[in-house]
């Protein structure tokens, strides 16, 4: 009997002790019963940092998420977003069942369907596309990295993938790849003595947030390191710096080049490194930099020439020193060159594979990104930025699959994205897989409930800040055994007794398992490429290829620890013992980039002034920033939204006075693509030519908490939402122009010129 086997398989997922995490007793105490709690160590995925977290279970209920003190990166520290992950899992407004649209698009009329129907429909469509050779009509919009989804995409041969995690920092990754052969570097700030921070905000939002903030603070407070920040607004990092230099938006590159000129002219550069380890000698760079005088830079950026001069000297003499590169530098139309210019400062002091400087990230060798993939990214044409660009090139779309991606909200000029997604002619079939009914999901033809990061298996290698490769394990803290699966099982009553973690979570599914089931139904070559039973089977396979881990207890040990560090690795420590560990080490730093030249761009770091500079009195450059509570997973979190539910427009107080605008006034902010109405925060913490707005607010979907509406639900707290009268902020993406840096291919998100009028 076919269904009998299915029953058995269904229960095996829930009951097989092999596939379950092993909770251990660790320090933790229940506030109400004062009993100690069970702990499962896992990995946080609210942001890319990959901090180790401990999930505390009271019986079978997840009660708390706190930092894992054994994780070498975050060392027990955890940010507000990580703790608020609890709200994501226990959200009463989560999407729990697959839905199908019944009314017109965007009307919000749904009917519940089964996963079987989902698989039949999707596999049918994909099979048809493969048969007719039209697989290019499948668009995959990937909002979150998942190895099985990637494998599925490459097995199908999908050409149109929108890779959101890669797009996020594209200008920076392109610039760094063009120079070092690697898209990211680890900034060893903990051992630096002098840190120049260009537009980064490691105290609020960074790719290695908690780990790097901890080390930076330690260096400053305990060891007396100096931190200097250039930013258009007073970020959290600028607030806790030794000096903040407000700078005109998008001119960081010019300041960096002028500093480089000072360093070279005064003979403070590391000649040995420049001549031996880079492809452009010190004499040649001196010639190139001659036109970037501090006086010119001062005129362009508003930072005084004296300051540029003395900071350059300090940077070159107070070794070890490091220059940090952030979104304030890269998210401009000249962003790639800005990043390359700041990076040049690092090369001038010989900062590569050096303590207190920059390191290549240490990954486990088997999880390292492929060099060929990195090279192909250098050509900006290879990066598809969104549906707007796909339609501009007249791409035919049959099916659009979005996973944890919400372009209708996050895309710059999101109005045009909404227009295209809503149009049934341009996107005939829209499938969205997400944890909530997002703005994009509201327009979908089919919505699939995604499991959160606390409900599935995964392994990843987060860049280690101490140069010892780390393997992070993500394990299901909350059981994914759905109510439906249990009810179908003949052993239901027994199963309830045997399954201590029984906790119906609807039918939310991991994207990996969805891909595997689709591959099984498509059959043939695709199924052969994905021979795994489920995500647990896949991670078991990944782990089996790591020899060092096997010696130290293998999967069993990994499950109880939640992470493993490869201390014996060749890459560990401050020096690679062999160049085999990292192919990029064999090449010189390309200050003169041949790859960029081949693609028709200037090969040397240069400064190009932005066209979007201030013209009239009431015109400003709009900068957006990510607050320390910003993450996709906290959009509908009650604790995050209680602290941050309003994103007022920051405007310089003196300028506001001349425009007759007072704190709290309502203004209309207009750009070339649209306008929005926001309240104003007059402050002395922002450059007079810029206005700033926080991202991540002003949702029109996702949930009532995100929308700032009080309601009665399973969670008593939602009836206590007290900010419903204040509204829920505005979404700045509505008015941000879709500018692209032609060199890096990333968006110039911080270039939009806006006009402000009081209403």
């Amino acid at each position, binding site marked *: 009997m076919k269904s009998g086997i299915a029953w058995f398989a269904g229960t095996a997922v829930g009951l097989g002790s092999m596939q379950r995490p092993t909770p251990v007793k660790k320090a933790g105490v229940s506030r109400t019963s004062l009993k100690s709690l069970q702990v499962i160590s896992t990995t946080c995925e609210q942001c890319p940092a990959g901090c180790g977290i401990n999930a505390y279970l009271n019986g079978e209920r997840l009660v*708390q998420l706190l930092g894992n003190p054994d994780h070498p990166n975050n060392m027990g*520290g955890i940010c507000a977003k990580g*703790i608020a992950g609890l709200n994501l899992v226990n959200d009463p407004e989560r999407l729990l069942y697959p839905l199908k649209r019944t009314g017109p698009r965007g009307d919000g009329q749904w009917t519940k369907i089964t996963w079987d129907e989902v698989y039949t429909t999707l596999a049918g469509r994909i099979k048809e596309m493969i048969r007719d050779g039209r697989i290019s009509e499948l668009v995959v919009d990937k909002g979150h990295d998942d190895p099985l989804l990637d494998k599925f995409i490459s097995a199908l041969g999908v050409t149109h993938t929108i890779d959101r995690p890669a797009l996020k920092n594209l200008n920076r990754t392109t610039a760094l790849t063009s120079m070092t052969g690697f898209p990211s570097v680890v900034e060893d700030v903990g051992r630096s003595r002098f840190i120049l921070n260009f537009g980064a905000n490691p105290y609020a939002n960074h790719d290695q947030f908690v780990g790097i903030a901890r080390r930076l603070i330690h260096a400053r407070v305990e060891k007396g390191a100096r931190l200097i920040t250039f930013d258009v607004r007073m970020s959290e990092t600028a607030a806790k710096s030794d000096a903040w230099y407000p700078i005109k938006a998008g001119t960081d590159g010019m300041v960096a080049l002028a500093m480089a000129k000072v360093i070279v002219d005064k003979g403070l550069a590391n000649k040995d490194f420049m001549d031996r380890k880079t492809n452009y000698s010190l004499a040649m760079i001196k010639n190139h930099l001659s036109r970037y005088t501090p006086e010119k830079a001062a005129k362009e950026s508003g930072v005084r020439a004296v300051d540029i001069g003395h900071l350059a000297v300090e940077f070159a003499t107070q070794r070890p020193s490091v220059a940090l590169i952030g979104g304030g530098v890269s998210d401009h139309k000249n962003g790639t060159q800005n990043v390359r210019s700041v990076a040049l400062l690092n090369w001038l002091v010989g900062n590569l594979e050096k303590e207190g400087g920059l390191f290549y990230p240490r990954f486990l060798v088997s999880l390292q990104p492929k060099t060929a993939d990195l090279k192909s990214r250098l050509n900006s044409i290879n990066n598809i930025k969104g549906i707007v660009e796909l339609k501009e090139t007249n791409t035919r779309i049959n099916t659009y699959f979005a996973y944890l991606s919400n372009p209708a909200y996050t895309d710059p000029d999101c109005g045009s994205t909404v227009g295209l997604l809503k149009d049934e002619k341009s996107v005939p079939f829209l499938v969205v897989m997400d944890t909530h009914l997002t703005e994009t999901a509201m327009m979908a033809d089919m919505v699939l409930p995604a499991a959160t990061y606390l409900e599935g298996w995964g392994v990843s290698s987060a860049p280690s800040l101490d140069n010892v490769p780390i393997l992070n394990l993500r394990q299901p803290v909350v059981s994914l055994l759905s109510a439906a699966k249990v009810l179908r099982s003949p052993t239901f009553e027994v199963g309830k007794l045997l399954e201590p973690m029984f906790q119906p979570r609807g039918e939310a599914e991991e994207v990996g398992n969805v891909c595997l089931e689709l591959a099984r139904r498509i059959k043939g070559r695709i199924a052969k490429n994905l021979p795994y039973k489920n995500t647990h089977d896949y991670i078991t396979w990944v782990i089996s290829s790591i020899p060092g881990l096997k010696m130290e207890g293998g999967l069993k040990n990994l499950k109880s620890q939640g992470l493993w560090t490869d201390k014996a690795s060749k890459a560990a420590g401050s020096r690679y013992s062999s160049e085999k560990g990292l192919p990029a080490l064999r090449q010189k730093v390309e200050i003169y980039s041949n790859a960029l030249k081949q693609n028709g761009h200037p090969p040397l770091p240069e400064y190009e002034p932005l066209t979007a500079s201030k013209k009239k009195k009431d015109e400003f450059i709009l900068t957006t920033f990510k607050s320390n509570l910003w993450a996709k997973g906290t959009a509908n979190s009650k604790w995050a939204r209680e602290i941050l539910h309003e994103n007022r427009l920051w405007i310089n107080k003196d300028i506001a006075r001349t425009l007759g605008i007072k704190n709290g006034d309502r203004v209309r902010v207009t750009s070339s693509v649209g306008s929005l109405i926001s309240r104003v925060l007059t402050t002395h913490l922002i450059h007079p030519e810029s206005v700033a707005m926080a991202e991540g607010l002003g949702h029109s979907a996702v949930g009532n908490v995100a929308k700032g509406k009080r309601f009665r639900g399973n969670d008593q707290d939602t009836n206590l939402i007290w900010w419903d009268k204040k509204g829920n902020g505005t979404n700045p993406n509505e008015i941000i122009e879709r500018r692209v840096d032609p060199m890096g291919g990333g968006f110039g998100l911080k270039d939009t010129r806006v006009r402000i009028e009081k209403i």
Partner: protein
Amino acid sequence: MSNKKKRYAMLVDLRKCIGCNACAVACKSENDVPLGVWRSWVKKVEKGHYPDSKEFFLPIVCNNCAKPICVTVCPVNASIKRPDGIVYIDPHRCIGCRYCMASCPYGVRYINPRKKIAEKCYWCHHRVDAGLKPACVLVCPTGAIMFGDLNDPRSDIAKAIAKNAVQVIKPDMGTGPQTFYIGLEQGTVEAKKMKEE
């Protein structure tokens, strides 16, 4: 561990605070604090004129005073000071009369909208009694918050207080606050929050 009397204290190193709100959210999670009320929060203050302006962060918790006014005024003896210095509220005794809230110079008490009794930060004494750190101390990404026994000269907090100049909020109230700060600048406590004016 000796049997000597303990004297618990908290130390917030403002040089290390990055205003990330992790302590505030961890407190909500640990103590199941409803929306609209807080046991721990971060006050953000702006000072100075552009371009010499600066932003300050000030995490606030109950001071667990050495001479707590709230304990003196409570008509039903629900506010109690333990020998180790922690001031807590017995939920079974509290009648929700708000006298303690009116008397507290720091405004750290609130009425729980569900239970209708007064509550405040008590340094997670359920965790401390089990030998753990309070939740906000554990999660702080930069290790800016310290907690420990001042009577033990080898504890981290005693060493830090011996080494650095420390301040308390509103020392003139004579309450003897036991939550100490390093780097608390004048005017930060009195200043209005960034959004108000």
